[in-house]
């Protein structure tokens, strides 16, 4: 970690959501199939459930104020009435609970004595019920990363949300296939925000979870959320980092963004401004003949334009304390999250086509000086009216630096505003699901199934099978370590050969266009057995797999078709003799040093039909005879 970052005091709390490999969803008997087609749909509205304390969750109000209806698309192959919120949830799936408990145990978490399923209010439409069902199964625990202990806060079993298909101004569309799939969520203590270390923590946690053998593999089965804060500042929640290599970028971006917002706040306090005063006025009339394309487009569509005047922010909307970090962008993101595209602020009037004369007229009309920022909000009247107070609220936050928000990670590793941070009082018991007492029997059973620590296992693979660390980690990550160990013991082959055929070769061959389906474990082990039994040489394995994959042949058929049956010793001797004969002058000149050249020639002649070790032995014997030495 660089000194600069340590001084910033960036803290990052990781929350990892890992899909479990359960055969059914968490609260119904539906399979965890991904659907491509959705023959049925229905439409729902969610309203915020009110809290007894009179307050409604700010995030819930935010979503409700958008007043969007939700369209749900479903297919009976992947969802039933439970996902449609038309039938009470069935009891918690045993395999989901067991897997989550095992994950908790693996992380050294303390299992609670009684599991209580809660309803966590989520009214962005991603749950048909308006809440997510979730239960803490473990508290505490830790993870050792590069000698540093990272604390586990909690291990939670939860249902996944519906998959969003699209969104427009008035509605969102979701698919129900993913809704209800079992996830385990692990929340870690915040760590100092060295981006690389954060990524490493996530990698370690992912491996620890995989070591249980109970988690799903493949794209989209693991998702990272980050809680990022600068020393003393408010926490920003960043959702949905799907790829591990984006983590450092996201941390970096968020650090830069938060620092930038703090610098903007410092500038304001330097100006003696402790609060921003805002006023809003309808300027549709004044903007009638505007040269701004954005405003004109909205006005043509029957929209209106409201001008928000913010005191003291003149020149600060477009100021970039860091590259591409500016208040104007933050405010525009809030607008966009509310389906409002048309906002223009005074620092970009010229760029947006507003002339100086037009600005002067506007400033006169609004009685505002250049020290004030003007934000023009253009769009459908209902959308503008809903957005203006939200934009004013965001502008006012400028004096306090970083607002507590929920943001989404983008594909490029940046973050974008989603909604205000939810309050803490948004959970209540799921009374449809009885509490589950964790019995002594279950605890004992779990203790027996705690997997070998992944780091211990990688070290053991290196030691027992003489693998390089790189290959050992690859074997571990590939999830076929059990097969690797079995084949290495069973076959008379170097474990590194077994490992590279099992984990290296498939990815190389898929890049070369061999279908993944033709590189399954049965095929790989068959080809290894063919090498082991001397039917072919290990050098021919890539060609055999390619032929088998692209021509739909079995391993034996591919061996015959390619003519790569292993050459017998007599055939090898014949080829060695002819090569030696051909290169006699070189041998006489270079002696033993001619070995590599001759070896290459012989292998080329034999086109992979011989075991390199056998060829090498015969060739060395022959050279020794010729150069008058006895062997080597």
């Amino acid at each position: 970690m660089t000194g600069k970052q340590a001084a910033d005091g960036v803290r990052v709390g990781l929350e990892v959501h890992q899909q479990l490999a359960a055969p059914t969803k968490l609260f119904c008997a539906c399979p965890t199939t991904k659907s491509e087609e959705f023959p049925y749909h229905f439409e729902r509205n969610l309203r915020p459930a009110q809290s007894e304390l009179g307050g409604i969750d700010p995030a819930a109000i935010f979503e409700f104020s958008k007043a969007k209806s939700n369209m749900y698309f479903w297919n009976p192959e992947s969802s039933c009435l439970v996902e449609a919120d038309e039938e009470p949830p069935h009891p918690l799936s045993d395999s989901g609970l067991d897997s989550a408990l095992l994950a908790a145990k693996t992380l050294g978490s303390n299992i609670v004595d009684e599991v209580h399923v809660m309803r966590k209010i989520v009214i962005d439409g991603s749950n048909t019920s308006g809440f997510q069902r979730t239960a803490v199964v473990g508290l505490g625990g830790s993870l050792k990363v590069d000698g540093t202990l990272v604390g586990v806060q909690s291990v939670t079993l939860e249902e996944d949300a519906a998959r969003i298909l699209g969104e427009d101004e008035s509605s969102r569309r979701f698919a129900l296939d993913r809704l209800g799939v079992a996830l385990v969520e692990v929340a870690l203590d915040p760590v100092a925000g060295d981006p690389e270390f954060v990524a490493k923590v996530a990698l370690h946690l992912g491996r620890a979870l995989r070591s249980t053998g109970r988690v799903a593999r493949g794209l989209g089965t693991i998702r990272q959320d980050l809680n990022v804060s600068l020393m003393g500042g408010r926490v920003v929640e960043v959702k949905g980092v799907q790829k591990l290599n984006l983590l450092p970028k996201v941390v970096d971006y968020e650090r830069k963004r938060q620092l930038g917002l703090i610098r903007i706040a410092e500038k304001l306090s330097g100006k003696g401004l402790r609060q921003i005063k805002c006023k809003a006025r309808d300027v549709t009339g004044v903007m009638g003949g505007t040269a701004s394309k954005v405003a004109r487009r909205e006005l043509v569509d029957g929209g209106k334009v409201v001008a928000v005047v913010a005191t003291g922010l003149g020149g600060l909307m477009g100021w970039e304390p860091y590259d591409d970090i500016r208040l104007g962008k933050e405010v525009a993101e809030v607008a966009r999250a509310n389906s409002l595209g048309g906002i223009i602020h005074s620092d970009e009037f010229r760029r947006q086509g507003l002339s100086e004369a037009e600005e002067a007229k506007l400033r006169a009309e609004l009685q505002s000086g250049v020290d004030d920022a003007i934000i023009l909000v253009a769009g459908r009247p209902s959308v503008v009216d809903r957005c203006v107070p939200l934009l004013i609220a965001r502008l006012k936050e400028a004096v306090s630096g970083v607002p507590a928000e929920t943001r989404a990670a983008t594909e490029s590793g940046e973050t974008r505003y989603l909604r205000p941070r939810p309050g803490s009082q948004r959970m209540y018991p799921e009374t449809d699901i009885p509490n589950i007492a964790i019995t002594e029997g279950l605890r004992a059973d779990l203790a027996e199934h705690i997997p070998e620590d992944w780091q211990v296992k990688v070290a053991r693979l290196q030691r027992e099978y003489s693998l390089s660390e790189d290959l050992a980690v690859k074997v571990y990550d590939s999830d076929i370590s059990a097969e690797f160990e079995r084949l290495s013991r069973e076959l008379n082959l170097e474990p590194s050969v077994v490992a590279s055929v099992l984990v290296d070769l498939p990815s190389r061959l898929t890049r070369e266009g061999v279908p993944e389906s033709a590189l399954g474990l049965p095929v790989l082990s068959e080809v290894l057995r063919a090498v082991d039994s001397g039917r072919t040489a290990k050098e021919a394995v890539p060609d055999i797999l390619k032929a088998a994959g692209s021509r739909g042949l079995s391993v034996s058929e591919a061996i015959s078709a390619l003519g790569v049956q292993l050459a017998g010793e007599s055939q090898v001797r014949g080829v060695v003799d002819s090569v030696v004969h051909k290169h006699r002058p070189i041998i006489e000149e270079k002696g033993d040093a001619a070995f590599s050249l001759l070896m290459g020639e012989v292998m080329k002649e034999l086109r992979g039909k011989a075991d390199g070790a056998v060829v090498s032995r015969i060739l060395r014997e022959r050279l020794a005879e010729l150069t008058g030495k006895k062997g080597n």
Partner: protein
Amino acid sequence: MEDLAGYKGSSLSFLKKAGASIGDVLEVETSWGVVSGTLVPRYLYGDGDHVVLKLRSGYNVGLDVSVLRSARVLAKGQKPSFSASSPPKPSKGLPRVLIIGTGGTIASRIDYRTGAVHPAVSSADLHSLVPELSGVARVQPEILFNVFSENMRPSHWTKIAQRVRKAIGEGFDGVVITHGTDTLGYTAAALSFALVGVPVPVILVAAQRSSDRPSSDGPINLIAGVSVAGTAGFAGVYVAMHLGESDDKVALHGGTRVRKNHTSRRDAFVSVGVPLAAVWGKSGAEYVSDGLPMRGGSSFAPKTRFEEKVVLMKFYPSMPAGLIKAARKIGAKALVIEGTGLGHVSKEIVRELELFVNGGGLACMTSQCIGGRVDLSVYDTGRDLLHAGVLPLEDMLSETALVKAMWVLGNSRSLGKAKEMMVANIVGETTSRSFPGTPL
């Protein structure tokens, strides 16, 4: 709320010793560490071995008291105090609608601190939860009683009917009754008979998904119900529930032909053998059936008494004749039988029914087919039933027939008059023509 609601056994004594009550912030020491959180109530059927704390994250966890070493009250809880913002000023031009609460909860609020759910009771409450109501009508909510749907009895029907009669006198433009879903169809039938000729719409609404969840169907059913009660041009007793899975349309079912046909779906209620009375969309009426009674009719003559001693029985293969005898023994004055097919029962049951009728009882036949009408003239068994004095009730739903028998016996002076009323079509409980393709 009691101080330690739901706790019993060793967990109760543990908490008492610690001086804790619900809502307090506790710190307990377990065998593996210290946990702190808010003490929340224990459910009725929870065991006596666990203490439930709500962690700061909002999650509840159960901790085994036998491994808890100590507990300390960190902070005493504060009773939640809720004051709903005052409802918007009622617009003078809007109709007045009385909302009678009987136990079904249409809107409620959650105490996230403890997880308790409290139903909306006052007008302010209801408005803050379903703000759309203020644009539809001037509503006056009132709790008549609070019983689960399955615990409703004819005496409750009488109370509701009497309150509706009074409301009409008070000048309400319509009445909405909130009710649990389970016996909603029975109550709808009962009110249809008791309030025959009612000059305003009387709309029963319910929710298949509980009101404490953001996805509850209750608010939309309520908005539609209030809208119909206040503005519809027709009168009578109807059930307003979701037309389909979506929140966009609410169906109105005539009170004597409505049945709950699914345990959990939003569109569980269907009109059997008749078209829907009406369909309500987001902007009001989208469809209104022909021939509904008009608002303001002058033939309102409520008869709100019911005779409870009526038995409904479903015939099944090997049904013992002793069941009919037992009905006689408990003093049943009428028997409604759900026969098979066109309305059949076994020979033994025919004989018992004859004895029941000869003893002065009223015996009626409906069909367990749900769709279609009974006909006792086609087969020998049917003719035997007719001969035994059993009344065939056309296509009347068996549940409606039960309620009607209770009402008829409560409001007639002779058995002859009761029989006459039983087979007459009073509020659309039977139809005279059946059609292909009519929904079940």
